[in-house]
C-alpha cells in the first residue's frame, strides 16, 4: 500500500480530532489506554508532519451547509511546515512529559483530550489556507486552551477569564478585519487574495491589517495586551504550560507572517508607507516588540513566582520575534523564525523543569527552594543550557537568532529598537540568574535533602530539546536552511546559508561563525579543565554550612537564613518601582470602571455580578461595528 498518499495535512487534522475523541472515551476506563493512545496519536501526527517536509499541497473542501459556496482550503508550504513541526513535536513531548506530572490531578482525562484537540486546532491554524478555516481553527484553539487553563481548578478561573476575554476581543477584531477583506475581494483563499492586493487603497489595507493584527498581538501577548499572559501561564496546569508558552504563543507571530508577507506581500506592505526601507506597519510591530521585550523583562526581574517569571520571560522573548518579524529584512525574518524555534526549544524545557520542581517542592515561590543543583543534576543541566540559550550565550543556539535580529536592527540603523532589545537581553541575564540562584544554587533546605531527578518521562523530553539546542548551536545552517525556503516562499530574499558547512552566517556587515566560536570555546574549555585538574592539589568537599560567616559559628544561631533568593534585585526594583506602578492592568480596570459608570442603565437590566472586562469587550465590539460601518 502506498502510505505516502496519507501524508497530507488534512489527514493529520482528522487523526488528531478523532484521536481526541477516542482518547476521551478510552481514557474514561483505563489510564494506561489514555496515556498510550494520546502518545500514539500525537506521535503519529508528529511523524506525518515530519514527513510533510518539502511538500506543497492544497486541498479544497466545500461544505454543503455554507450558503454562498465558501470553500475551506487546507494545505502546506515551507512556512507552514516550519511552524507545524515545532507545534507537533512540542505537543508530543509535552504529552509525554505530562504523564507523570499530571498524574492524579484534577480532570486528568480531559487534559489529554483537550491537549490533542489543541494540537489539532493549532496544526489546523497553520495548515489552513483560507480566511474562514483559519478563523475557525483559531477559535477552536482559543477555546481548547482556555479550557485547559481552567483545568487547574478554582484559582485559575480568573486568569482563564482574563485570557478568554482578551482573546475574544482579539477574535472580534480579527473577524472584522477578515470580513472586510472578504467583502472587498470576494474570496477567502490566500493565494487569490494576495493576487488582488496590489492596487488596493492604502487606508483600507491599514485598517483591515491593523484589525487582524490586534488578534495576533493579543495571542502573542504584545505590549498593550500582555496582561493575560502572566496569570494564565502561571495558573495553567503544569502539564500544559510548556505547550502554552512554547507553542501557542508562536501562533500570533505565525498569523502576522501569514497576513503581512503571504497575503499582503512585501511590495504592498512597503506601499503602505515605509521608514528607511522598512514598511511602517512592520516598523510599528517591531517597535511594539522591542518595547514589549523591555517592559516584560523588567516585570520578570521582580517576580518570585517561578512560573510568572518564565511567563514574563515568554512575553519578552515573543517581543524579539515580533521585532524581527516587523523589520522584515532577510536577516531579521530569518532571525525571527529562528528565534521562534529557539524559544520553543528553551522555554518548553524551562517550563517542564519548573513543573517538575513545583511538583517536587510543592511551591511556586523560588525563595522557598534552593541548592537543588547537586540533587537534580539532569534537570539543572538541561535548564542551565536552556537558560544560556535564553540569555543568548554563544554556546547555545539561542545566540544565533538574537544575533540575526540585532544585526538587522543595527544594519537598518534603528537606534531605538536595537539598544532597547540589547538592554532587555542584559535584563534576561538578571532574571535567569535569579532563577538559577534561587532554585538550584545556594543553600539546600532541610526539607529537600532527598530530592532527586524526576522520572525518565520528564527528563527525556527535556534532554531531547536541550540536545537540539546544543546541536543547532554548532550547525545553525540546518534550521536556517528550512527558514531560507520559508523566506523565499514569503517573497523575502532568503538568508544565505553556506549549504556545505552550515556554520557561518553573515554578510558584509558582520559575521558569526558558529563552528569557530564553538571550537575555540571547546579549546578554551580544554585548557581551563587541564589547568583546573592538574595545577594545584585536589580539592576537598565541604559541607554547605561550612561557609564564611565572618568567623561566627553556624551552630550558635539556630534560625539563620543563608539562602539569598527573596527580593533578589531590590536595588533595581526600587529604581523602576515608580514607573512600573503604572501597570497596564490598572488602565484596563480604570477603563472598565469608566465604562461601568457610563452603562449604569444597562447595569439595571443585568442582575449584578458582571466582570468589568466584559463591559470593555462589549464597548470594543460596538466601536468596531461603528468603525466598519463607517468605512463601508
Amino acid at each position, binding site marked *: 500500500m502506498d502510505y505516502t498518499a496519507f501524508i497530507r495535512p488534512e489527514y493529520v487534522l482528522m487523526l488528531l480530532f478523532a484521536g481526541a475523541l477516542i482518547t476521551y472515551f478510552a481514557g474514561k476506563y483505563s489510564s494506561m489506554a489514555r496515556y498510550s493512545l494520546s502518545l500514539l496519536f500525537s506521535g503519529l501526527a508528529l511523524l506525518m508532519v515530519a514527513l510533510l517536509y518539502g511538500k506543497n499541497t492544497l486541498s479544497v473542501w466545500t461544505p454543503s451547509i455554507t450558503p454562498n459556496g465558501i470553500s475551506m482550503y487546507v494545505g502546506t508550504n515551507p512556512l507552514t511546515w516550519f511552524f507545524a513541526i515545532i507545534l507537533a513535536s512540542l505537543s508530543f513531548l509535552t504529552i509525554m512529559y505530562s504523564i507523570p506530572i499530571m498524574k492524579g490531578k484534577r480532570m486528568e482525562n480531559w487534559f489529554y483530550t483537550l491537549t490533542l484537540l489543541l494540537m489539532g486546532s493549532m496544526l489546523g491554524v497553520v495548515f489552513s489556507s483560507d480566511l474562514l478555516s483559519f478563523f475557525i481553527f483559531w477559535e477552536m484553539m482559543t477555546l481548547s486552551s482556555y479550557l485547559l487553563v481552567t483545568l487547574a481548578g478554582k484559582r485559575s478561573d480568573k486568569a482563564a477569564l482574563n485570557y478568554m476575554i482578551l482573546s475574544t476581543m482579539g477574535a472580534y477584531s480579527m473577524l472584522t478585519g477578515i470580513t472586510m477583506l472578504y467583502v472587498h475581494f470576494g474570496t477567502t483563499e490566500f493565494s487569490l487574495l494576495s493576487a488582488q492586493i496590489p492596487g488596493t487603497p492604502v487606508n483600507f489595507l491599514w485598517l483591515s491589517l491593523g484589525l487582524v493584527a490586534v488578534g495576533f498581538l493579543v495571542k502573542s501577548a504584545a505590549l498593550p495586551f500582555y496582561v493575560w499572559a502572566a496569570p494564565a501561564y502561571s495558573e495553567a496546569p503544569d502539564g500544559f504550560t510548556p505547550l502554552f508558552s512554547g507553542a501557542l504563543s508562536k501562533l500570533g507571530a505565525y498569523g502576522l507572517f501569514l497576513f503581512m508577507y503571504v497575503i499582503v506581500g512585501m511590495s504592498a506592505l512597503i506601499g503602505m508607507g515605509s521608514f528607511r526601507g522598512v514598511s511602517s506597519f512592520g516598523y510599528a510591530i517591531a517597535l511594539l516588540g522591542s518595547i514589549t521585550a523591555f517592559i516584560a523583562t523588567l516585570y520578570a526581574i521582580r517576580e518570585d513566582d517561578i512560573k510568572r517569571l518564565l511567563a514574563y520571560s515568554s512575553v519578552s522573548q515573543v517581543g524579539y520575534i515580533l521585532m524581527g518579524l516587523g523589520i522584515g529584512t532577510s536577516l531579521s525574518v530569518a532571525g525571527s523564525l529562528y528565534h521562534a524555534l529557539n524559544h520553543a526549544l528553551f522555554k518548553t524545557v524551562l517550563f517542564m523543569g519548573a513543573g517538575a520542581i513545583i511538583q517536587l517542592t510543592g511551591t511556586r515561590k523560588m525563595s522557598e527552594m534552593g541548592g537543588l543543583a547537586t540533587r537534580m543534576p539532569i534537570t539543572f543541566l538541561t535548564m542551565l543550557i536552556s537558560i544560556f540559550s535564553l540569555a543568548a550565550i554563544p554556546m547555545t543556539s539561542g545566540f544565533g537568532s538574537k544575533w540575526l535580529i540585532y544585526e538587522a536592527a543595527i544594519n537598518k540603523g534603528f537606534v531605538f529598537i536595537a539598544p532597547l532589545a540589547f538592554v532587555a537581553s542584559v535584563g534576561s541575564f538578571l532574571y535567569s540568574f535569579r532563577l538559577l540562584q534561587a532554585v538550584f544554587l545556594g543553600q539546600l533546605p532541610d526539607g529537600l535533602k532527598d530530592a532527586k531527578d524526576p522520572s525518565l518521562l520528564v527528563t527525556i523530553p527535556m534532554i531531547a530539546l536541550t540536545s537540539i539546542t546544543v546541536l543547532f548551536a554548532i550547525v545553525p545552517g540546518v534550521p536556517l536552511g528550512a527558514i531560507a525556503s520559508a523566506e523565499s516562499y514569503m517573497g523575502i530574499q532568503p538568508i544565505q546559508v553556506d549549504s556545505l558547512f552550515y556554520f557561518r552566517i553573515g554578510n558584509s556587515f558582520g559575521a558569526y561563525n558558529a563552528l569557530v566560536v564553538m571550537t575555540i570555546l571547546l579549546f578554551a574549555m580544554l585548557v581551563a579543565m587541564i589547568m583546573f585538574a592538574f595545577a594545584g592539589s585536589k580539592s*576537598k568537599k565541604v559541607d554547605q554550612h*561550612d561557609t*564564611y560567616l565572618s*568567623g*561566627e*559559628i*553556624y*551552630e*550558635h544561631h539556630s534560625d539563620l537564613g543563608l539562602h539569598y533568593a527573596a527580593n533578589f534585585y531590590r536595588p533595581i526594583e526600587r529604581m523602576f518601582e515608580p514607573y512600573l506602578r503604572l501597570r497596564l492592568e490598572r488602565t484596563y480596570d480604570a477603563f472598565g470602571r469608566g465604562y461601568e459608570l457610563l452603562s449604569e442603565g444597562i447595569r439595571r437590566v443585568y442582575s449584578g455580578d458582571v466582570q468589568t472586562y466584559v463591559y470593555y469587550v462589549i464597548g470594543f465590539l460596538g466601536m468596531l461595528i461603528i468603525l466598519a460601518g463607517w468605512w463601508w
Partner: protein
Amino acid sequence: MVDEKEKIVSEDMGVQVDKKEDIEMRSFGTIKRWATKRSLWMVHYCTGCGGIELAPLMTSRYDMERFGMHPMVTPRQSDLLLITGYVNIKTLKRIIRTYEQMPDPKYVVAFGSCPINGGPYWDSHVTINHLDKYLPVDIYIAGCMPRPQSIVKAFDDLMDMIQEGKADGYLRYKKYYDKYKANQEKIFRKWW
C-alpha cells in the same frame, strides 16, 4: 575535620613520611615555598589590642605590601592568621573556626605577651593564657605592644622559616589533631 591520610606529613617536618608529598617537596618545593613566603596574605582579623599596630604596618611608614603581604577578607583566601593580642574564650572559638577554614599551608603569628602567657591578664577569668595549648603557633612576638619594627622582623623570620620548611604549625596541628581538639573541648564545654 582532618582526614586520616592528611595526618601523615613529610620527613623534613621532622615527623612521618608520605611518599607523594615527599616527591612534591623535592621537585617544586623550593619554588613553591619561595612563592608562599613572598605572598603571605593575612586574615583581616584583629583579635586584640595588637591590631592597632597593624595599621601603621600596612600604611606608608612600614608598608608591608613591600613583602607581598596584605590583608584578605576571608580565611579561604588567606595564608597567615595573626593573633594580635590577648585571646578571650569567645574569640578563641572564632579563631579556631577561622583557622580551620584556611587552606594549607597556613601560619599563625601571635602578637604580644598575652598569647604567650597571659600578659597583664594572667589572672582574668576569660582570657586563655597559653595560646599554643589550643592552636599551633609558628612565631611569637614578645612585648606589649610589639613595635612595628619587631613585627616586621618576625615576618622576616617567618619567611626564612617557610623557605627552610620549618614553619610547620599546620602540620603539627594535623599530627596532634586529637590532642588539640581535646584541649579545645575542655575549655569550651559546649563545642560549637
